[in-house]
């Protein structure tokens, strides 16, 4: 197979345990988002739209749905015939045993063989659970311009939130001088997005050293970057200004979903004509709004039927809202059913979950937690 300039290693093994029941049966990258997508669509589409056609997807936690969703990558234009495309890379056994991926760096270390097969000049490390639209080619150009060993994508965050992120301090040439994971007193508001471009030779050397380091947790943020910085390597930033979210928790999942709505949404799904967000969606008929349907400020997926009222909500593929039912500020995941007369406020309804007739769920009171119903769960009257 031909040599590639840059390949991507997409970390998709995360459990996403803080997403609670939404990740009970599926890995976080496979969680449904935005009416028709799964979270991993965003990183995969970015790869395809950036001309990066070889993507190793490192999976681990509950991989079945994720693997079947990925297929051979055709949905993202990534089913190449020359050896590129999507390769699913779960943990595997060797003559000397096998092990789960112990950390983000370890996952890549265990697949150095995959990287060497493609012999790229650069390796792009991505996370499969972030929502954003980015041209990695521009980041690669910046990496080459700086003659960098490692380029870290960064974005400015509000100062008051800086202590939640890995914070990067850079000099006037965009060279990284300091990296602090979740600093108490940040001296910069540039946060690492967990998106890295490495020059391959250095990456492979560093990972091999890290693998035998007893003190290391084998994590890119905690171990690899500090080590390279201490060794005086050329680490540079690439600043990104745009929508970017890591939907780590139920409340951030809900907030980010709501960011898609309104007349000037923070994340505009319709502003991506030249870089479409691709997905492996089925072919359901167009959404049907019934004779008494009343619906506005909603995203509506194919195969959905709306007979009741819905406002400021996301109604995903094949979701159903019955007569006299009311859905407000909520997210209905694919196949969720809200039966006649039920009333749902600020809730996330899992895939194929059923809210029986006249059930009332959730509250407009924003001090209360967002209600979450797991996939396939049925909520009957009196079980609220």
């Amino acid at each position, binding site marked *: 197979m031909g040599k590639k300039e840059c390949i991507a290693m997409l970390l998709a093994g995360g459990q996403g345990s803080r997403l609670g029941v939404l990740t009970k049966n599926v890995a976080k990258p496979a969680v449904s988002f*935005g*009416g*028709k997508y799964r979270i991993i669509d965003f990183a995969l589409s970015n790869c395809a739209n950036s001309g990066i056609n070889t993507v190793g997807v490192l999976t681990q936690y509950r991989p079945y749905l994720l693997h079947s969703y990925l297929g051979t990558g*055709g*949905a993202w234009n990534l089913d190449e015939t020359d050896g590129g495309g999507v390769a699913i890379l779960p943990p595997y056994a060797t003559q000397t045993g096998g092990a789960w991926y112990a950390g983000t760096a370890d996952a890549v270390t265990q697949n150095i063989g995959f990287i060497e097969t493609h012999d790229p000049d650069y390796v792009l490390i991505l996370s499969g659970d972030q929502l954003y639209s980015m041209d990695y080619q521009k980041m690669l150009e910046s990496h080459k311009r700086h003659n960098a060993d490692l380029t870290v994508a960064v974005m400015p965050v509000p100062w008051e939130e800086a202590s939640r992120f890995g914070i990067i301090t850079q000099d006037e040439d965009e060279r990284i001088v300091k990296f602090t994971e979740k600093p108490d007193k940040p001296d910069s508001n540039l946060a690492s997005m967990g998106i890295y471009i490495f020059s391959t030779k250095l990456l492979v050397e560093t990972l091999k050293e890290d693998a035998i380091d007893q003190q290391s947790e084998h994590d890119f943020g905690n171990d690899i970057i500090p080590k390279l910085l201490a060794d005086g390597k050329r680490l540079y930033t690439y600043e990104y200004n745009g929508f970017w979210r890591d939907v780590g928790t139920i409340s951030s999942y809900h907030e980010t979903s709501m960011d898609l709505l*309104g*007349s000037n949404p923070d994340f505009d*799904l*319709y502003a*991506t004509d030249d870089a*479409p*967000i*691709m*997905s492996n*969606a*089925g*072919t*359901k*008929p*167009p*959404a*049907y*709004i*019934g*004779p*008494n*349907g*009343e*619906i*506005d*400020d*909603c*995203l*509506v*997926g*194919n195969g959905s*039927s709306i007979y009741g009222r819905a406002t400021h909500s*996301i109604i*995903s593929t094949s979701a159903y809202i019955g007569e006299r039912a009311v859905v407000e500020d909520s997210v209905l995941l694919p196949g969720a059913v809200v039966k006649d007369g039920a009333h749902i406020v600020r809730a996330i309804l899992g895939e194929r979950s059923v809210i029986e007739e006249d059930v009332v769920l959730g509250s407009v009171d924003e001090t209360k937690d967002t209600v979450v119903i797991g996939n396939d769960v049925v909520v009957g009257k009196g079980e609220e």
Partner: protein
Amino acid sequence: MEKYLGFITANYSTKYPSAITESRPVASAPFLGRYRVVDFALSNMVNCGIRTVGMVMPYNYRSLIDHVGSGRDWGLNLKKGGLFILPGSAFGTSRTGSRFLLRDLEHNKVFLERGNSELVILSSASFVYNMDYNDLADAHLASGADITVLTKTATRKDADVTAFKLEDGRVKGVHHGVEPGDTAFLDCFVMSRTFLLQLLDWYEQTDYLDLFEAMAADFERVNVRTFDFAGYAAPIFNKDVYFKANMDLLDPKISAELFPEGREIKTKAHDNAPAKLELGSHVRNSRISGSCRIYGTVTNSILGRNVLVEPGAVVNNAIVMQSCIVRSGAHIEYAVVDRNNEVPADIEVKGTPEALFIKEKAAE
């Protein structure tokens, strides 16, 4: 050995052309916002387990090839078998109304000869229905007929639907045009592959005829039986039935028959965002496809992908196809607005139920 071989004649040219079929064959006429008419024939074939489908192309095949491609969206990009694009005869271009022109079958005998299945299922691409063809094939084998045609009792007069005359359950005559109560042909039949090849030899001298016209004198010796399809089926032969069939799908009962759970009508995949019904929009009894953005009023209508309806615009009892823009204050009623049209602000585009307004496709 494969169960059945599939053969789709997608080169039918309607005898009743309108702006909708001016630029494309019936097979690639858009249907219900996101589909093309051919999706139904193709999906019915693959859903019953067919893995090899030959498709006879019309002369204006660009839109059809663009749509079906390698057959991947129907699971037909196979190493062995899959989708075969077959040439149609020049006569397929004349608007004779024939759906199974002998010449088209003769020209593609090689495809039929190379098949390795006992039975072949043939269909035009001019009807909309969803059926498990195993039922048809099982009935065919059980009755011992030479040919089993898929039929439905006509409920309306329709000049372009083929009718069969029956005696004791056997087809004894065929004619164009159905009256209510007639046995209407759904342009689909099953027969043995070797017998079809034999028939093609018999009728070699009359290859300008439709297969069923050619057989008209032979119903005594060829045992043709019918299989009555109980579900929803609609012919797409002219603009009025086209409009009605689209509107039928606003009825959830009909919709459930055409799109049953587990037997999906597949179509070319597009990367559209979900539809967005914006703040203040008013949408009722309508179907809205992906990437539509609705600010105005849409009632009793079908919208294709990526249609923009601006604030104050009204779309009622209409089909508005892909990538149209309906500007503020525009009013569309009893109309079919084909792809890429921009309806300017405060303009009325109005037909009546009896005389639909058809706006032809605009340049991209």
